[in-house]
C-alpha cells in the first residue's frame, strides 16, 4: 500500500548477498516444456503424402515435394512435405490436421546459420536419418541445428481428441442383425440429408482416394457438392466417370475408403454411402444430369454382357455418339450384379434405375439373348464395327473333394434366390470359402433358413482356408456376418464330403491349414493332414471362386485369343484383345473382380473403341 519512503528502497540491497537467479545458459541447460512447438519431424513410413499440412499452412511454408525414391501406391503418394523456416510460424496447425499423425513438432528449436537456404528442409525422422538424431549424451546445444538433433524429443504432437478433422464417421443407420436376418430387407438404410452433409464435411480434400479408385472418380468434388447440398452437381461429377452410381453406391469394394487418409487413425469417410446418397436422393437422373448422346457417328458397337463393364462401355460410347447394342442372357441389366449380390445388399430396383437411365440415352438392350445360342458371335462380329466382351466370371469353381457333386454351387444358389425361385435350404448349412461371395451365400442361406424354418435351431457355418486376417472378404462383411451369428471356421480346408447311408450330405471333414500362400506369395495351400475336424451339416455350398465361360466364342477365334499368365484375356492399352475389333473388359480381363475395376476397364476400352472407330 502507499507509504512513500526514501529509505525503504534500500532493502533491495539484500539481494546482493543472495545467489543470483540467472540460468547460466548454455552451461546450465533448461529443457523446453513437453508440449513445446519446435522443429518439425515427419515419420516417413507413416506419412501418406496427403498434403493436408501444405493446404492448411497459413504461410505456405510447406510444399509437397516428389521423392523419386519412394514408391507411390494406393493411399500413399510419393510426396513428402518440405518446410521453409523462413516462413514457418510454428503454429502447429499442420500437426493438428495431419491425419496419420506422422508430422510432429519436437522440442528442438536451435538452428542458426548464415545461409538462408539451410532453413528449407524436408523433415524426416530418426529412423530415416539416424545420423542427424543423436542421443542426449552426445547432444550438444552449441552444435544444435537442423542436422544435429536430439533423439526421442517429441514436443507438440497430434492428439485425436483435439485434431482439426473428425475421426469418427457419421453412423450409418443399419437394421439390427436380429431383425435383418429374418428377411431380405435392404439392411443399410442410407443417409438422410443432414447426415450426408455432415459426413461429407469430414472430407479433407487430399484426393488420395481418387488415385486409389481404379476408375479415378472425382471423389472430393462430388463430396464437396454433397456438402454444399447440391446433389445434382454431385451426380454430374459421378457420371463423368461412373454411370452406375446406384449399384456402386451399394456394392463397390471402396478402395477409396481404404486409401482415405482419415482411415489411418479414425474411420474412413463413407465415400460409398455418399455416392449412394447422391444416387438415391435424385429420383430422375435424366433431368438432373442433362446429358445427351453425342452427335451420331453411324458406327455400331455390340456389347456382350450387361454387367458393370458392359453398361459403362455402352454409356461412354453412347455419349460419343455411337450406336450401341447390349446383349445379355438375363432378363434385365446388371449382369453379375443382378444375380450375385443378395437383395439385402443390392435391390433390383437400384440396378434397374441405372440401366434405365443408360437406356434412356439411346442404348439398345437385347435381353434374354445368349450369344452363341440365340445370336452367333461371328454374326455380331460381322454386323458391328466393334465388339466389346464383358461377360465376366459366370461359372463357379468347385473344390473337387470326394463327393463334391453333392454340393451346391455358389453362383447358381445366389442367382436362383435373387431372380429365380428361392432354394430349399437345410437346417445346418456349410459354406466353403472365405470371400465376399461365400459370405453372401452364407448370409443369404441364413435368411432363407429363418424364412423356411422359423423358430427352429438352424446354423450356417463357413470354412475357409484363410485365417481371420487373411480372409479376402471385406472386414465389414465379416463383421456383419458375425453379428448375424454365422459360425466361422477359418484356417480349415475341406477334405471330404461325408454322406450318410442314404447318400445325403451328413457333413464336411476338414483339415487344418498350415499356410495358404507359398514363399512367393502365390496361392498354394498346405495342410496338416493329421489334424482333422468334422462339421455336421445337411447342405454344403461351395463358394471358392468363379471362372469365365468362353464357350460362346467359336473355337477358331478362341485359339486366336491370347491370355495372360494368370489366365486373363490379354488386352492392349486400348482395351483391344488379340482379335481385331474385339475389345474386352471386366472380370475376364482384370484380377480385382469387382464392379469399379470393370468400369475402369470400360473407360479405357471405350476410349480405345472410339479411337479405333474414327
Amino acid at each position, binding site marked *: 500500500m502507499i507509504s512513500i519512503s526514501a529509505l525503504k*528502497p*534500500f532493502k*533491495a*540491497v539484500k*539481494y*546482493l548477498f543472495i545467489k*543470483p*537467479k*540467472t540460468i*547460466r545458459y548454455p552451461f546450465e541447460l533448461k529443457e523446453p516444456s513437453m508440449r513445446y512447438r519446435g522443429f518439425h519431424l515427419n515419420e516417413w513410413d507413416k506419412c501418406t503424402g496427403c498434403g493436408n499440412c501444405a493446404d492448411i499452412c497459413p504461410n505456405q511454408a510447406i510444399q509437397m515435394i516428389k521423392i523419386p525414391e519412394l514408391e507411390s501406391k494406393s493411399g500413399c503418394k510419393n510426396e513428402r512435405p518440405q518446410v521453409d523456416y523462413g516462413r514457418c510460424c510454428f503454429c502447429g496447425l499442420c500437426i493438428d490436421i495431419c491425419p496419420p499423425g506422422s508430422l510432429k513438432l519436437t522440442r528442438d528449436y536451435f538452428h542458426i546459420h548464415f545461409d538462408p537456404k539451410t532453413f528449407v528442409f524436408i523433415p524426416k525422422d530418426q529412423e530415416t536419418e539416424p545420423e542427424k538424431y543423436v542421443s542426449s549424451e552426445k547432444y550438444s546445444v552449441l552444435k544444435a541445428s537442423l542436422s544435429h538433433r536430439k533423439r526421442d524429443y517429441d514436443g507438440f504432437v497430434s492428439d485425436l481428441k483435439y485434431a482439426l478433422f473428425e475421426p469418427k464417421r457419421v453412423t450409418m443407420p443399419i437394421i439390427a442383425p436380429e431383425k435383418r436376418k429374418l428377411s431380405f430387407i435392404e439392411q443399410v438404410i442410407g443417409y438422410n440429408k443432414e447426415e450426408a452433409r455432415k459426413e461429407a464435411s469430414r472430407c479433407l480434400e487430399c484426393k488420395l482416394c481418387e488415385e486409389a479408385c481404379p476408375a479415378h472418380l472425382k471423389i472430393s468434388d462430388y463430396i464437396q457438392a454433397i456438402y454444399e447440398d447440391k446433389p445434382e452437381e454431385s451426380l454430374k461429377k459421378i457420371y463423368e466417370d461412373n454411370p452406375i452410381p446406384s449399384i456402386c453406391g451399394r456394392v463397390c469394394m471402396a478402395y477409396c475408403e481404404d486409401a482415405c487418409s482419415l482411415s489411418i487413425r479414425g474411420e474412413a469417410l463413407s465415400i460409398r454411402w455418399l455416392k449412394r446418397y447422391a444416387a438415391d436422393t435424385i429420383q430422375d437422373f435424366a433431368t438432373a444430369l442433362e446429358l445427351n448422346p453425342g452427335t451420331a457417328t453411324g458406327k455400331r458397337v455390340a456389347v456382350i454382357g450387361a454387367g458393370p463393364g458392359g453398361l459403362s462401355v455402352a454409356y461412354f460410347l453412347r455419349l460419343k455418339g455411337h450406336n450401341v447394342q447390349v446383349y445379355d442372357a438375363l432378363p434385365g441389366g446388371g449382369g453379375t450384379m443382378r444375380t450375385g449380390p443378395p437383395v439385402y445388399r443390392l435391390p433390383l430396383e437400384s440396378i434397374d434405375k441405372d440401366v434405365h437411365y443408360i437406356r434412356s440415352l439411346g442404348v439398345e438392350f437385347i435381353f434374354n439373348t445368349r450369344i452363341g445360342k440365340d445370336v452367333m458371335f461371328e454374326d455380331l462380329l460381322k454386323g458391328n464395327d466393334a465388339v466389346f466382351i464383358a461377360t465376366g466370371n459366370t461359372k463357379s469353381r468347385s473344390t473337387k473333394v470326394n463327393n463334391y457333386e453333392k454340393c451346391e454351387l455358389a453362383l447358381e444358389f445366389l442367382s436362383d434366390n435373387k431372380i429365380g425361385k428361392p432354394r430349399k435350404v437345410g437346417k445346418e448349412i456349410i459354406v466353403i470359402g472365405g470371400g465376399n461371395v461365400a459370405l453372401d451365400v452364407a448370409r443369404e442361406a441364413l435368411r432363407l433358413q429363418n424364412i423356411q424354418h422359423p423358430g427352429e435351431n438352424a446354423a450356417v457355418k463357413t470354412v475357409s482356408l484363410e485365417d481371420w486376417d487373411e480372409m479376402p472378404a471385406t472386414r465389414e462383411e465379416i463383421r456383419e456376418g458375425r453379428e448375424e451369428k454365422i459360425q466361422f471356421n477359418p484356417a480349415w480346408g475341406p477334405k471330404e464330403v461325408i454322406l450318410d447311408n442314404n447318400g445325403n450330405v451328413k457333413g464336411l471333414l476338414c483339415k487344418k491349414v498350415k499356410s495358404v500362400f507359398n514363399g512367393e506369395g502365390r496361392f498354394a495351400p498346405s495342410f496338416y493332414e493329421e489334424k482333422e475336424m468334422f462339421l455336421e451339416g445337411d447342405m454344403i455350398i461351395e463358394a471358392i471362386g468363379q471362372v469365365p465361360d468362353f464357350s460362346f466364342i467359336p473355337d477358331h477365334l478362341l485359339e486366336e485369343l491370347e491370355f495372360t499368365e494368370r489366365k486373363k484375356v490379354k488386352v492392349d492399352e486400348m482395351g483391344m484383345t488379340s482379335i481385331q475389333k474385339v475389345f474386352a473388359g471386366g472380370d475376364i480381363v482384370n484380377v480385382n473382380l469387382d464392379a469399379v475395376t470393370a468400369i475402369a476397364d470400360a473407360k479405357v476400352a471405350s476410349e480405345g473403341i472410339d479411337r479405333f472407330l474414327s
Partner: protein
Amino acid sequence: MVMNTILEIIIIILLAAIIGLFFLGLSRKIMARIHWRYGPPIAQPVIDIIKLFNQTSMSHGKLFNFGIIFSLSGSVVVLLFLPLGEMCPLSSSGGLLVILYCMLIAPLGLALSGGEAANPITSIGISRKFLLAFGYELPLLLILLTVMTHFNTISIVDIVNMQLQTGWSFQHLPLLLSGIAYILILPAILDLRPFELIQAPQEISSGPMIEYGGKFLALATIQHAFNVFISLSLFTNLFLGGAENPGYFFLKMLIVFIILLFVNAVTPRFRIEQAIKFLWRWPALLAFAGLIIVSVTG
C-alpha cells in the same frame, strides 16, 4: 629527481586507469547481483576498450577530436595533484583550488566535442551536463571552502598529513556535514543514479556520447574511469584521512563507491530540475552549515 617524478606520474596514471576501470567493472558486477544476475566479468570494461580501439571510428571534425583529448588531459592533470598514499607528483604546487579548476576542464572538453557532432540530442545532453555541473559545483565549492578554512591550507597534501595527526576529518562536526554533503553530490559527479541524467540511454540515447564510437568512446570511457578515481580519491583524501599506503587508500575508496552503488541500484533517475533543486537544497545547505560553523569556531 625529475626521473623520479616522471616515474611517479606514469605509475599514478596507470594506477588510476586500472582502479577506475576496476571500479567500473565492479559497479556492473554489483548492480547485476542486486538485479539477481551474475553480470559480466570484472574486466569487461577493459575488454570493451580493447574492442573500441579495434573499431573504425567516425570523426565529426577537428573540434570533436580535440574536445575528447582536452577532456582527457584535464583529468590527467587533476590526477597529478592528488596524493595517493605517499605518492603525489605535483604535491608542491597548486592544491585544492587548482583541482577545482581543472575538474571543470573535463566536461568542457566533452561539451566542445559534442557540440561539433551537431545532433540535437547531444545538445540536450550537454545542457544537462552543464546544468548538473552547475548544480554540484556550488556545494562542492562550499565543501572545499569548509575544508580549506578548517585546515587553514589549500594544499591537499597538508590536509592529508594533518588528518594523520588529528584523525579523520569526519570526527569534526563541520567537516562531517561537508562530508555528508560530498557524498550526496558524488553520484552527480560520477553520473550515477539518481543523477544519471547525462547519458540517460532511455531518455536521450546516451546524450553527449551519442555520436561517439570506436576510439573516441574508448577515450571517453577512460576519462570516465579517471573521473571515478579522482572524485573518490578526493573524498578519501579530504574526509577519510587519505592513507599511508595505496592498499589502504584503495579500500577506503571501495567502501565509499559501494555505498554509492547501493544508492544507484535503488533509485530511478531524477528529472534535471528536480536534481538541481535537490543539489542546491540538501548538500548545499549542509555544506553551508559546515562553512558557517567552521568560520564561527575556526
